[in-house]
């Protein structure tokens, strides 16, 4: 068994909404996996099924080989969930919360050292005896992460952990999740920030309207977008462009020109040669590769059928 998560023909219907429409995928052990999609795509429902918060209408889901319905205790012990909302229990201190959460998972005194280590690592030691109500949003977010890790789950699911978080904390959370991954945890990250998925995830699934639109490596997804940008600074600034170049222009501000090139049909060399032949001098140039954002928007807007099956192969 090498899979941390397996989801097969998973459906979830609410009264009026078909939130998941037969989703299939697997996450390998030790993988850093991204789950992307617009609002209402079904990401939180999918995570909810893995964590036991949502009951699937059909299909099956397993965490570390444990079916989430039939072997629910083992499945829940294998998963640590960092929820999207900043939820907390206002009656308790940080240390008490971690102690209680550890107990819910069946751990006793033997876990005390681990709780203290989590407090240190997540920079919560100074606030360990503070009530949750007294903490800032960023601190509460760290407590949620500590709670998810308190039973040492091999699989950690972070549901939009950096939503509404300042830049400094976002960087700190990125460092921490990278560390968890480096230490052997399987990480599943849902995010609205494509930059975040691009920076962290090895493979990415894109969900939309309850269906898997794509599942591929980061490089594989990026390769689906055939465009790249060529940015030029021309001399003279008002130079007339030959037709072969003019048709590629997407933006022009005096001598600064931005061109969109098709990977297969438009060559940078040919563009430069046309300009030289027209007597236009290139003072500077650079290229910009597409980001996940372009791929994401293209997939979501085109409404293409799921290509998950081929991507998984």
């Amino acid at each position, binding site marked *: 068994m090498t899979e941390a998560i397996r989801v097969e023909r998973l459906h979830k219907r609410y009264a009026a909404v078909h939130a998941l429409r037969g989703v299939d995928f697997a996450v390998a052990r030790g993988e850093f996996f991204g789950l992307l999609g617009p609002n209402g795509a079904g990401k939180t429902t999918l995570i909810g099924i893995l964590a036991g918060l949502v009951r699937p209408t059909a299909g099956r889901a397993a965490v570390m080989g444990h079916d989430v319905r039939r072997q629910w*205790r083992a499945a829940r012990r294998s998963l640590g969930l960092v929820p999207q909302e900043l*939820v*907390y229990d206002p009656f*308790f201190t940080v240390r008490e919360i971690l102690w209680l959460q550890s107990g819910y998972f069946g751990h006793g005194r033997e876990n005390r050292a681990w709780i203290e280590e989590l407090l240190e690592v997540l920079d919560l030691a100074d606030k360990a005896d503070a009530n949750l109500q007294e903490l800032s949003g960023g601190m509460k977010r760290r407590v949620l992460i500590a709670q998810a890790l308190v039973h040492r789950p091999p699989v950690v699911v972070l549901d939009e952990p950096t939503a509404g978080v300042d830049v400094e904390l976002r960087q700190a959370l990125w460092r921490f999740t990278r560390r968890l991954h480096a230490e*052997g945890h399987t990480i599943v990250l849902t995010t609205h920030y494509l930059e975040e998925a691009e920076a962290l995830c090895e493979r990415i699934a894109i969900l939309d309207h309850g269906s898997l639109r794509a599942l591929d490596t980061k490089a594989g997804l990026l390769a689906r977008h055939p465009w790249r940008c060529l940015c030029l600074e021309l001399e003279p600034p008002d130079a007339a462009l030959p037709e072969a170049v003019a048709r590629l222009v997407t933006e022009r501000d005096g001598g600064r020109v931005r061109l969109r090139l098709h990977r297969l049909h438009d060559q940078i060399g040919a563009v430069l040669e046309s300009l030289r032949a027209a007597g236009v001098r290139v003072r500077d140039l650079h290229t910009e590769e597409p980001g996940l954002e372009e791929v994401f928007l293209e997939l979501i807007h085109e409404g293409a059928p799921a290509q998950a099956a081929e991507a998984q192969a």
Partner: protein
Amino acid sequence: MSARPEPAGRGAAANLRGLYTLFEKEVLRFLKVVVQTLLTPVATALLYLVIFGGVLAAHLEVYPGVGYGAFLVPGLIAMTLIQNAFANSSSSLIQSKMTGNLIFVLVAPVSPLEFYLAFVAAAVVRGLLVGAGVWLVALLFVDLPLHSPALVLVFAVLSAAVLGALGVVAGIWAEKFEQLAAFQNFVVLPLSFLSGVFYSIGSLPAPWDRLSWLNPFFYMIDGFRHGFLGVSDAPPGLSLAVTAASLAVVSAVCLAMLARGYKIRQ
């Protein structure tokens, strides 16, 4: 802090530590607001004692040889005990649902039975503490016999458990504080007030005297009072049977709701 493989043999076994921790959390929760959860109900019960006991003591003798104060105090203890057992589990659950922190228990390997036992046991503890508080303070004012400590304890625990389980049912069912308040004010409060706390149901006019025999709270309070006074409206065996049956019915409903994940798992 590396990912650790799952220990073998921890798959399906009961999570007793989880059960105990959830119970501990529920007890700690009400101990953190002890003025609200313990002292206030004791003070309220004493107000009833002062007002009703003081005014009526000279005029009423409910059972031969039993003064009104001695009649009233066991009823007050039982009423305070069951109302607080209900309040403990219901308010904790509705708060956890409204603030969203119930998720921390729902993601844990805690079974419906373990969840039920933890909440009901904590409700029983709060009920017993409040009941003991009312009793101790009432002893300053009333000379109260203790006919059968075992019967008192059995009825106290069973009654608190019934209302603790009913509190879980109401806490799961209610989606807003307003709905829970309605359940408390239109179900729990009338049934407990109309259960013979302040009077013997034999003194009620028809049809209220007969209708009182349909109120399960009457048997809880009547049996509890029998433990103190040795006399009661209903035979203590009948009261015990009705209270135990009430516990079985409410617990079955509660466990069925938890097992289905009714209103707590989507």
